[in-house]
C-alpha cells in the first residue's frame, strides 16, 4: 500500500511539472533547481478524497479528470469497507460521483463484484436528485446494463428530468462504447427503458441514438407499439429504430411501417418512414416507395431521392445515406 501511494504522489508530481511552461521564467528556473520533495504517507480513501477536493479548486478540467482516473485505478487496492462507508456518508454530489466511480471500478476490475449494487441502490433511493444523477454518471460506460436488473426502467421514470436524461445518456453511451451496438441484451435493456419512460423526450432520445441491429423480437414488438405514441418525436424515433432491426424481423417491421404511413399526418414522421422503408428493403423497397410517393405530394422529392439512390445499386447503408445527401445538395 505505501508503494502505491509513493508512486501515486510521484505521478502527481510529474503531472504538476507539466504546468511549468505556464509559469514565469524565474519561477521555472527555481522549480527546476529544486525537484519536489517526495514524502511517504499512508494511503487511504480519506487522503485521496482530500487530494480530489483540493483538485476541484484547480480550475483545470484535465487535472480533475486525472484525479478521477487516479482514484479509479487505486480503487482496486483501497479498503472496501472504508470506501463504502465514505460513499454512504458523502452528500456532495461531485465527491459522491468520485466515490461511486471508485466502487464501480472495483466491480469492473472484478475486485468486488457487489460494489456496483451499492451504487445502484443509492441511485434509486437517495432523496437528492443531484446525488441520483451523480451516481448514474459514475455507472456510465460500464457493465451496469447487465448487472443492475430493472434499474434503468425505473430511473427513466424518475421525478427529476436531470436524472431521466442521465439514465438516457448511460443507455446510449453504454450501447455504443461498451458494446459497439453488437450486444442484443444491452440494446434490449435500452428499448425496454425507452418504452417504460413517461418522458417523451427521453424515449425519443434513446431510440434516436440506439443501434437496433441485434435486438430481440420482443424489443421489435415494443418499438412497433411505440408507433402509436401521441408524441410525434417518439413515433419518429421508433420509426428510425425499426429501420435497423435484424434480418429475421425486417418483414414484420416493414409491414408495420407501410401500414403506418397511410394514417400518419406529421411530415417529419413520414419522411422518417420513407428512410426506414428504404433501409429495410434496399432495392426491393423501390415499388413500396413508388406507392408511398403518390400518397403525399409534399414528400414526392424525398421519395424520388430514395428511389434514385436505391437504384444506384450501392450495397452499404452508410454509402446510400451519403449518396442521398449528395444528391439533395446538388444544385
Amino acid at each position, binding site marked *: 500500500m505505501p508503494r502505491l501511494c509513493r508512486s501515486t504522489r510521484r*505521478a502527481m508530481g*510529474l*503531472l504538476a*511539472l*507539466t504546468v*511549468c511552461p505556464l509559469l514565469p521564467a524565474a519561477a521555472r528556473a527555481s*522549480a*527546476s*533547481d529544486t*525537484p519536489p520533495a517526495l514524502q511517504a504517507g499512508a494511503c487511504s480513501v480519506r487522503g485521496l478524497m482530500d487530494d480530489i477536493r483540493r483538485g476541484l479548486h484547480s480550475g483545470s478540467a*484535465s487535472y480533475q479528470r*486525472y484525479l478521477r482516473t487516479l482514484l479509479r485505478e487505486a480503487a482496486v487496492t483501497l479498503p472496501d469497507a472504508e470506501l463504502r462507508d465514505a460513499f454512504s456518508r458523502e452528500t456532495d454530489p461531485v465527491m459522491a460521483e468520485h466515490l461511486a466511480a471508485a466502487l464501480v*471500478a472495483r466491480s*469492473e*476490475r*472484478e475486485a468486488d463484484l457487489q460494489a456496483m449494487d451499492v451504487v445502484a441502490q443509492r441511485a434509486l433511493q437517495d432523496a437528492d436528485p443531484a446525488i441520483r444523477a451523480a451516481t448514474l454518471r459514475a455507472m456510465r*460506460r*460500464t*457493465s451496469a446494463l*447487465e448487472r443492475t436488473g430493472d434499474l434503468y426502467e425505473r430511473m427513466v421514470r424518475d421525478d427529476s428530468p436531470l436524472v431521466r436524461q442521465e439514465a438516457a445518456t448511460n443507455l446510449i453511451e453504454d450501447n*455504443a*462504447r*461498451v*458494446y*459497439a*451496438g*453488437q*450486444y442484443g441484451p*444491452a440494446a434490449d435493456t435500452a428499448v425496454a427503458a425507452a418504452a417504460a419512460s413517461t418522458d417523451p423526450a427521453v424515449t425519443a432520445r434513446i431510440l434516436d441514438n440506439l443501434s437496433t441491429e441485434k435486438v430481440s423480437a420482443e424489443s421489435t414488438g415494443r418499438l412497433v407499439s411505440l408507433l402509436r405514441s401521441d408524441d410525434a418525436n417518439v413515433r419518429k424515433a421508433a420509426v428510425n429504430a425499426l429501420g435497423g432491426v435484424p434480418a429475421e424481423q425486417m418483414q414484420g417491421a416493414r409491414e408495420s411501417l407501410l401500414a403506418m404511413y397511410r394514417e400518419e399526418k406529421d411530415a417529419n414522421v413520414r419522411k422518417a418512414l420513407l428512410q426506414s422503408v428504404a433501409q429495410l428493403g434496399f432495392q426491393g423497397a423501390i415499388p413500396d416507395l413508388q406507392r408511398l410517393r403518390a400518397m403525399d405530394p409534399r414528400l414526392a422529392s424525398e421519395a424520388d431521392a430514395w428511389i434514385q439512390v436505391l437504384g444506384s445499386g450501392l450495397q452499404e447503408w452508410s454509402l446510400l445515406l451519403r449518396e442521398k445527401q449528395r444528391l439533395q445538395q446538388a444544385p
Partner: protein
Amino acid sequence: MRSTLKTSLAALAALALIPASAAAHTVKGTHTGSVTALTYYSSGTFHGAVDIGAGGRCNYWGAETGVVGSVYWAVTIRTSGVVCNGNGSGNQNEARHAWQSGWTFRQWHFIKTADSRNRTCDRCQVGNIGGTGNSTGPHAHLQQDKLGTKNTSWYKGYVSVGSAVTRAKTIGVLD
C-alpha cells in the same frame, strides 16, 4: 543542467500519460514478460501485432485483457487442453472486442480456464498465458484489425522488441 534535462524529460513523460482524446483506450500489459515480436519477426516476415512472451512459463500467469476501460469481450475457445508450444494455426483461443468503428482488438493463445467466458469488464482474466494455435511458446498476441488489415500504429513508440512488460506497462493506445 542535468536537473533541468531530467525535469523536462519527466514533464514530457507525464504529458505522454494523457490520452489524445476522450475516446482513446490505453492497452496495458496482459502479464509479466517481455515483447518478443512487433510489426516484423526477426526473420523479416510481417507480423503486425504485439507478442508478449512469458519467459517460457506456461499456464502460470493469468491472461488479463489489456484494454483499459470497460468493454465487452467475446471469448472463443477452440482448444480446451493445456497447450504451450502450439497446436496448429487456427486453433488459438481468442478474446476479442469489436469497436464501433469496425476495428476489432484480439488477444490470442491463452489456455482455457474457468474465467474463459464472454463478459464486460475492465482488465479481467480470460485464461492463462499459453501457446494454443500457431505458437512456438507461451505468449500473448495483441492485434487490432479490420477487414483483414492489421493496424500497426497503435503500439508504435510505446514498446520495442525486448521491452520488459508488466500489467502496469502501457503497450499502446487504441482510438
